[in-house]
């Protein structure tokens, strides 16, 4: 029998062990292929204004995938190597030289890689139409997607994967050549020792994380860029120390508390965790950081989408807006609308003052109140309560279309008079037709300003079918002068919303990929534990531990391994998202909760898988 045949036999025998790895690899190949093929899809390329968005997001997404893959392959091949060191040892014992063994095992990895590449490409091609259709839908594009196999995308995927596979083949080969026979035989027998604990580092970790949070929340004083950099660095250090030291301190305390420890299976689970922290804290910390990245970035893209939806209400509160006080123009507009067959749902007229030198408009409190209640703005009571008894103060309404406001304004000048800003808010008012910030002043103050500035009349109309306003827009543009600032639902267009749609879709997809990555990392880590624990559970069974108790203890142990990084990751991301929400001046509670829930569900599925596999290993 030659070594290649042996490799094939091994490969067939181990295919079950490789199940999870294969799945992750196939999934990542398929995903990568889809990201790349997006770039070569003729239909997407035809839509000129989209090309740049599609290309840049496809590039970013595929780069991230490569990063993940390199990390994942190195991680899992280490796992497999450790798993099979004894087997390698036996071959070495039988007198097969290291080079041949190395070649055998590395080839096995290569076969695995090739298999997943082929299956991944097949699945990827199969699903590419679905993927692009979803993308088009998410981006609100009105286009037909044909089934299409871009050769370039396949070539690119094959080249990139082959490169990664070749590198991992070389790494595996070199790793095995370098191992000693004695190490190989003894790997699983190595006695574990209780790790030392470092109180100082443990408590320092809390302080460091606290400091990071403080910097993040007070980004205003430190400057945004600096705050971001320091927060990231401190959070990573703090998280590593938290799991490296503080967790040991806590678990050791629990183990000393016999009242807690001597309660059923606690004694098994917690004694095991105490020993395993040393081997696992890096994984915990890496997973916690990954979870934070995952939830925060998904939170960000879904917030962005949420924000855009909300912003749309602010930018386009009416179907048609224009500025005119000429009765004859207004009548002609009405006539055109009537002829178009649309039904008018709301007709609004309001006066405001234009202050050209400060680039803002002024509206009196009573008008403001009427506008908001006619538009039926949600939570308007909050802002309306502020415009009572304004006197010399004003309320500042942000310019429609403003994404992030970094500055907190204290007072503002109108002409030669300065006003104190009582409150700042983002609410629908005139929309993009009047693209200026707006000051709400008391009715009395308005009268005195009216002398100095020109008063204009705003006209807003809401129609029953805002989507279909293309013809109407062109007709209105013919009769209205340029300075009327005609703005319609059609003009608001889809360009920006398209971009957000694409970003949202790719973001969610990458989110899924990363959840998968996080899950696989923790899965492999825990599974390698399970082999070390096999002996322990055999002893426990002999001593009369029931299968139910073993189940319970495994659930607890594996559960804690999953739960600890999850909790830390969630806390980190809540802080991150709250800063984001502060930046956007929006409450992002809804998208945050949704993204956390989705993450927990997918992560929970991984927990179920891992737990089952673990129990199979220790009992079966």
């Amino acid at each position, binding site marked *: 029998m030659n070594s290649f045949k042996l490799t094939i036999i091994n490969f067939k025998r181990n295919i079950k062990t490789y199940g999870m790895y294969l799945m992750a690899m196939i999934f990542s190949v398929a995903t990568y292929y889809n990201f790349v093929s997006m770039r070569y899809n003729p239909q997407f390329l035809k839509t000129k204004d989209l090309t740049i968005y599609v290309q840049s997001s496809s590039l970013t997404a595929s780069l991230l995938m490569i990063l993940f893959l390199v990390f994942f392959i190195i991680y899992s091949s280490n796992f497999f190597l450790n798993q099979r060191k004894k087997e390698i040892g036996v071959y070495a014992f039988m007198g097969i030289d290291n080079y041949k063994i190395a070649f055998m095992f590395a080839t096995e990895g290569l076969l695995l890689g090739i298999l997943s590449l082929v299956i991944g490409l097949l699945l990827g091609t199969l699903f590419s139409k679905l993927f692009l259709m979803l993308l088009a839908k998410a981006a609100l594009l009105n286009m037909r997607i044909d089934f299409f196999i871009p050769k370039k995308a396949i070539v690119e995927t094959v080249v990139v994967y082959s490169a990664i596979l070749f590198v991992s083949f070389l790494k595996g080969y070199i790793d095995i050549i370098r191992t000693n026979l004695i190490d190989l035989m003894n790997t699983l027998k190595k006695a574990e020792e209780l790790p030392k604990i470092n109180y100082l580092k443990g408590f320092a970790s809390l302080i460091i994380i606290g400091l990071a949070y403080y910097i993040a929340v007070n980004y205003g004083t430190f400057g945004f860029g600096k705050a971001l950099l320091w927060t990231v660095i401190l959070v990573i250090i703090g998280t590593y120390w938290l799991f490296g030291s503080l967790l040991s301190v806590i678990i050791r305390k629990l183990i000393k508390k016999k009242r807690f420890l*001597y309660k059923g299976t606690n004694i098994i689970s917690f004694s095991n965790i105490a020993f395993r922290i040393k081997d696992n804290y890096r994984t915990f910390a890496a997973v916690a950081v990954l979870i934070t990245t995952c939830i925060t970035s998904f939170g960000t893209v879904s917030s962005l989408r949420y924000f855009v939806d909300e912003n749309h209400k602010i930018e386009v509160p009416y179907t048609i807006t224009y500025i005119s006080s000429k009765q004859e123009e207004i009548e002609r507009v009405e006539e055109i609308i009537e002829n178009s067959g649309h039904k008018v749902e709301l007709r609004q007229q309001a006066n405001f003052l234009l202050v050209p030198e400060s680039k803002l408009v002024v509206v009196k409190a009573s008008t403001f109140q009427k506008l908001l209640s006619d538009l039926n703005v949600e939570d308007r009571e909050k802002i309306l309560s502020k415009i009572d008894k304004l006197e010399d103060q004003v309320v500042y309404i942000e310019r429609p279309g403003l994404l992030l406001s970094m500055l907190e304004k204290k007072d503002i000048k109108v002409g030669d008079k300065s006003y104190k800003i009582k409150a700042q808010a983002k609410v629908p008012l005139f929309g993009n037709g009047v693209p200026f910030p707006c000051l709400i002043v008391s009715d009395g103050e308005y009268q005195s300003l009216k002398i100095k500035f020109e008063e204009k009349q705003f006209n807003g109309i809401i129609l029953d079918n805002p989507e279909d306003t293309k013809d109407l827009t062109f007709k209105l543009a013919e009769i209205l002068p340029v300075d009327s600032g005609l703005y319609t639902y059609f003009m608001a267009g889809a360009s920006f919303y398209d971009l957000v749609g694409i970003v949202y879709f790719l973001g969610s997809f990458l989110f899924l990929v990363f959840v998968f990555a996080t899950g696989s990392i923790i899965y492999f880590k825990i599974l390698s534990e399970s082999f070390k624990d096999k002996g*322990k559970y055999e002893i426990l069974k002999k001593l009369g531990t029931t299968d139910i108790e073993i189940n319970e203890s495994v659930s607890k142990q594996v559960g804690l391994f999953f739960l600890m990084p999850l909790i830390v990751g969630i806390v980190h991301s809540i802080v991150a998202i709250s800063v984001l929400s502060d930046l956007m001046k929006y409450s992002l509670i809804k998208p945050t909760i949704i993204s956390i829930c989705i993450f927990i569900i997918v992560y929970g599925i991984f927990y179920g898988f891992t737990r089952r596999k673990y129990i199979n290993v220790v009992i079966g």
Partner: protein
Amino acid sequence: MEVVLETRSLRKEYGSKGVIFSAIDGIDLKVYKGEFLGIMGPSGAGKTTLLNILSTIDRPTSGNIYYEGKDILNMKNRQLSIFRRKNIGFIFQDFNLLDNMSVEDNIALPLALSNEKVKEIKEKVEKLSVFFGLKDHLKKYPYQLSGGQKQRVAAARAIITSPSIVFADEPTGALDSKSAQELLLCLMKMNQEFNTTIMMVTHDAFAASYCKRILYLKDGRIHARLDKDSTRKEFFRRIIDFVGSMGGGVGELL
């Protein structure tokens, strides 16, 4: 005298159609309360199989096992596990301590799993640690102990539930002669002071000489029985003579 354990025509067969090998070939046996019983025999005589079956780790092909009159073979796996935890103590050749638990937790393990009162567990651990000379080592971990100490921890764990019987499978097999002797003295003391019933499988005539009664197994049957009626040294000589007469090499047994 009260019977702790009784078997009737116990059989264990391995293999399938045609080629059947009987590891245990009809064993009838009674173990009385407070006994220190030794099981000897050459390799392949079925000693370990017998021990595994008696200790409910394995099931016989046919026959009955009664613990204090109760038939245990009717029990389901879960019941059997709990029965094992409460009524049977184990001492293994390779200690089988859990490396990730301190000595005190290792000893407390069976009671902790049964959710006994923490105060009582602590008291029992304390008492046993004094008895086995482990008091100074309670906070240590198995990797910090010598073989003899480890086996004493295992012995303490075996009797913390006050089991009706303790099975010891070659308990001195992995120990040097001094530690082995210490352990055997411990077992003897355990047997005398707590009236613990012990059943010990051993190869070693010296270890066997600490027992009160010895059953000699051969080819899955009880071949002979030796009772201690004089000093241990005298008994040791008789065992050696007997094993010699059985044709087994003496060297194998020493």
